[in-house]
């Protein structure tokens, strides 16, 4: 069964995308070699359109010629296919909880955070408050735990890198410290724990380049930073 598992793994992604980077973290944690293909979503390649005709989005994982899209689906596929260093817990209830929290990050926190972008004044403040309310739930989850997955890095941690290294890097741009340490000590502690993990450290966009990119994008979209 384990023979040709690692053949031909290709990832279509973007260096700045949290959804793409989480796949890289998972593959690297499992020691799966892969070929990375940087995509330009403003000028979509025919390969991307062919491999993800439904959504035309990254990331797309291609394994032995077969494409898989939707980052959470890809993460489960990776865990199913390469069972070493499991990302999801074994127990069905714990798995259900992990899936719930992963969706919470992607469908609640992410959506709320996007509403902060490009807003100023009261509108911005309201959007920040809404995001913080959701982050407070994540804060609670971390009490007494090193990682969202418990004693070690797991599915929810990998997904929540979106919070640690994307949401928490947009403070300057938004003009407000979205996740102040006084309000979110557990989240800050968790980010430190994440950075102690070599795989995470090497798989996230380098901070300086990342911040430069975000600023440039905001400028090009003529989004104000207050």
């Amino acid at each position, binding site marked *: 069964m384990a023979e040709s598992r690692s053949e031909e793994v290709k990832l279509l992604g973007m260096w700045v995308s949290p959804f793409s980077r989480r796949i890289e973290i998972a593959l690297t944690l499992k020691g799966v070699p892969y070929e990375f293909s940087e995509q330009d979503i403003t000028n979509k390649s025919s390969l991307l359109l062919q491999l993800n005709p439904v959504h035309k989005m990254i990331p797309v994982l291609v394994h032995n010629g077969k494409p898989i899209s939707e980052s959470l689906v890809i993460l489960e596929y990776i865990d199913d296919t390469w069972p070493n260093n499991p990302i999801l817990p*074994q127990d069905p209830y714990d798995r*259900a909880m992990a899936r719930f929290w992963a969706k919470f990050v992607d469908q609640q926190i992410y959506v709320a955070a996007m509403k902060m972008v490009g807003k100023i004044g009261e509108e911005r403040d309201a959007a920040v408050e809404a995001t913080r309310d959701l982050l407070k739930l994540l804060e609670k989850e971390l009490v007494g735990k090193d990682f969202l997955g418990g004693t070690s890095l797991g599915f929810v941690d990998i997904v929540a890198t979106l919070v640690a290294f994307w949401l928490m890097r947009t403070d300057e741009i938004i003009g407000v410290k979205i996740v102040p340490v006084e309000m979110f000590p557990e989240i800050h502690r968790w980010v430190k724990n994440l950075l102690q993990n070599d795989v995470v450290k090497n798989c996230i966009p380098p901070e300086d380049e990342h911040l430069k990119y975000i600023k440039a994008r905001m400028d090009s979209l003529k989004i104000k930073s207050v």
Partner: protein
Amino acid sequence: MGLVNGSNNDEYVRLLGAWPSPFVLRTRIALNLKRIAYEYLEEEDTLNSESVLNYNPVHKQIPILIHGNKPIRESLNIVMYVDETWLSGPPILPSDPFDRAVARFWDVYIDEHCFTSINGVAVAKDEEERKAAIAKLEQCMALLEETFQECSKGRGFFGGDNIGFIDIGFGSMLGPLKVLEKFTGVKFIHPENTPNLFDWADRFYAHEAVKPVMPDIEKLVEFAKLKFNTSIFK
């Protein structure tokens, strides 16, 4: 795959639901498929409940599966939990990792695109909005027609010989689709445009795990009239 059947399967199973909800329906079908005995608790005041047709997972109250003292939320999570906990009984997700990924992908699509469009038609504020939602929904049907052909591999269901993850995810939407067909006059599942889905729908309705729990269409129609204030339901 290393899934350990660690849960005590003899623990009491309760499901909190609401009869019109397609999400609740999914969980009932899954429990039936595995022949799990459970207590069903109907949520009170279904008509004014925010949660019945609300896909948003934070605000959603139902369905909630309570196994022993463990609550599990979100219909697809519950279906997967049932599949992973009760290992005897027909599998809901396929065993091959790629087929599993395909099944998961389409259920995400069904929730984020199909259901959103169904809701979009129901709550559209004007004709233009409604037309756009209808067009989107028709697109979804065309895609799922193709998907059926790929996944069924000539058998009767998306899951092959028996109903699986996509059948449950999409089949639960047949009731709301029929209600919309009645009010808009548009046939979303059609013997000419979507012949495979048309035949599949009949088979799905007749399945022993589905038949006893599928809400009566007339009742759903009446519920829609009361629930939605928009003109098409008058």
